[in-house]
């Protein structure tokens, strides 16, 4: 019994951590750079489909698959999505925030419709099945299987977190903050706002693609219905709840909101008769909405607000000048 609970816990956390990866990608775009991406689902879908095509066995009725190792699929999914994000960004990044939102939303709709209709590549509405799962040999033992998958996700999230923290505290991250604060001043210092925004958009998109790829292999099956605007809404809720601009917040928010989502799903199936459950599922969205309202009212900057990020290379001064006399400028 406790093994069941433990393996459910592992499943839950694994799933939550795949969302944490998406959330980290959004944090690069929105939290650090202020790019309003409302098409998250589309970028996640691109990564998922790219990885599925790369890794599934050859299929007579559709393009691919190429039967490549899972890790190739993950890296491929991230790179393809990063490249697509770069191309989309090259067209749209000059748009003002609200228009960028509309453009990215459009991209997500296009991706979903393409997945639905390009049957020769994506399998159409039935999607792609038999996506190889990591540690499939252990699938007979749910606990071992669940913990092994969780281990992989923990490593991915940890590596991403360390990489993104390093970037945030690097001169690159500093330029992003400068552009976010005052684009004109950053331009006058030779920082091409467009170039840096485009980089952040592509990196964030690539991370979302990686998340899509990992999620696809974890579930083993993808279909266009997985990549609807609901996913975008969930990820935004996660980042806002956790704390935009804070990588720890992005991870925490993902776990919490996914927890609310999973628990409310359990509550709906427990409290309502089967005939009403489809309708009652809308209550899940209500729960997320309530959580969002509560956070915005009580902690508008999220559970973990944005921390002051300073270059990791700045050490303390050693010449003691800080203890010296007050400067002329300060007196004035």
């Amino acid at each position: 019994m406790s093994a069941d609970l433990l393996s459910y816990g592992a499943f839950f956390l694994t799933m939550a951590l795949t969302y944490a990866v998406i959330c980290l990608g959004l944090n690069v775009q929105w939290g650090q750079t202020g790019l309003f991406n409302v098409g998250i689902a589309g970028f996640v879908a691109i990564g998922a489909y790219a990885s599925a095509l790369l890794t599934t066995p050859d299929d007579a009725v559709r393009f691919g698959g190429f039967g490549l190792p899972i890790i190739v699929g993950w890296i491929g999914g991230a790179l393809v999505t990063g490249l697509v994000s770069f191309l989309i960004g090259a067209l749209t990044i000059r748009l003002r925030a609200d228009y960028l939102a509309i453009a990215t939303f459009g991209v997500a709709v296009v991706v979903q419709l393409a997945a639905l209709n390009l049957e020769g590549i994506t399998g159409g509405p039935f999607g792609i099945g038999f996506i190889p799962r990591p540690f499939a040999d252990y699938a007979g033992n749910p606990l071992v299987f669940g913990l092994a998958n969780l281990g992989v996700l923990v490593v991915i999230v940890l590596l991403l977190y360390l990489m993104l923290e390093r970037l945030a505290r690097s001169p690159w991250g500093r330029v992003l903050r400068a552009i976010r604060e005052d684009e004109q001043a950053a331009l006058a210092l030779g920082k091409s706002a467009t170039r840096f925004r485009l980089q952040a958009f592509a990196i964030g998109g690539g991370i979302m693609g990686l998340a899509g790829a990992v999620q696809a292999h974890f579930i083993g099956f993808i279909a266009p219905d997985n990549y609807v605007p609901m996913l975008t809404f969930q990820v935004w809720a996660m980042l806002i709840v956790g704390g935009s601009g804070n990588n720890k917040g992005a991870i925490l928010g993902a776990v919490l909101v996914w927890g609310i989502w999973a628990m409310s799903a359990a509550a709906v199936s427990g409290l309502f008769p089967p005939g009403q459950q489809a309708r009652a599922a809308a209550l899940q969205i209500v729960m997320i909405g309530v959580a969002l309202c509560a956070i915005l009212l009580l902690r508008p900057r999220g559970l973990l607000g944005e921390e002051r990020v300073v270059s990791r290379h700045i050490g303390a001064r050693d010449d003691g000048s800080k203890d010296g006399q007050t400067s002329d400028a300060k007196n004035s």
Partner: protein
Amino acid sequence: MQPAADIAHNLAASPLEARGVVKVFGGLRAVDGMSLALRPGELLGLIGPNGAGKTTLFNLLAGSLKPSSGAILIEGRDMTSAGPEARIANGVGRTFQIPRPFAEMTVLENVLTGGQHQSGERAWLNIVRPGRVAAEERAAVEKARALLDFVTLSKLEDEPARVLSGGQRKLLELARILMADPKTILLDEPAAGVNPSLLEFIIERVLELNARGTSILLIEHNMEMVARLCSRVVVMAAGSYLTEGAPDDIARDPAVVDAYLGGVA
């Protein structure tokens, strides 16, 4: 007859030049065929009554506006259609009339942002070449601290820039652009809204920079400051060139007095 030194100046490419620049806003010709050439190592003053088009010309020179016609040259290279971010890459830096610090970043980080050609500004080098990035950043921090000493803001290096007073913000902007090692600096009214003791300090710093060989174009209302800093002053009126000369002669020039007192009647 021109002295030999002047002829040599004229032969060397100007660090910053405007040739017949026009800027039209709707029906208004804010800058109307203005020409101006900064000489290497010079501290040139640009004055003119309100509405003469000084700030528009400044923005054209800094690249934040594109001229309707005419050309902007940096050391003889045509930069007319290049954006503001291309100016500093070619050695021309600017300050803003109303300072624009990165308010939530620390004073030290503000200055660090002025650095050019930093490996750490390339995202992937932070992952694949962390040692090189760290070494460059340490050198940058050292240089930024020296610049903060120069403008006496050292003790505030860890404070967010938003706590600085108006005058301190001007100093921070100066340090920030100096971080980029500009050969030429455009100063937009450094004296505006600054108290007298700090103004004195800013004047000293500007003179010291110029003495080190930095060419400076100063736009200023404060005639006293212009007279103390500049040996040559260009006067702009109604969007175009009116006259130029030594500050004392300019102050007595009837055409200049007329322009300041409300038009050529």
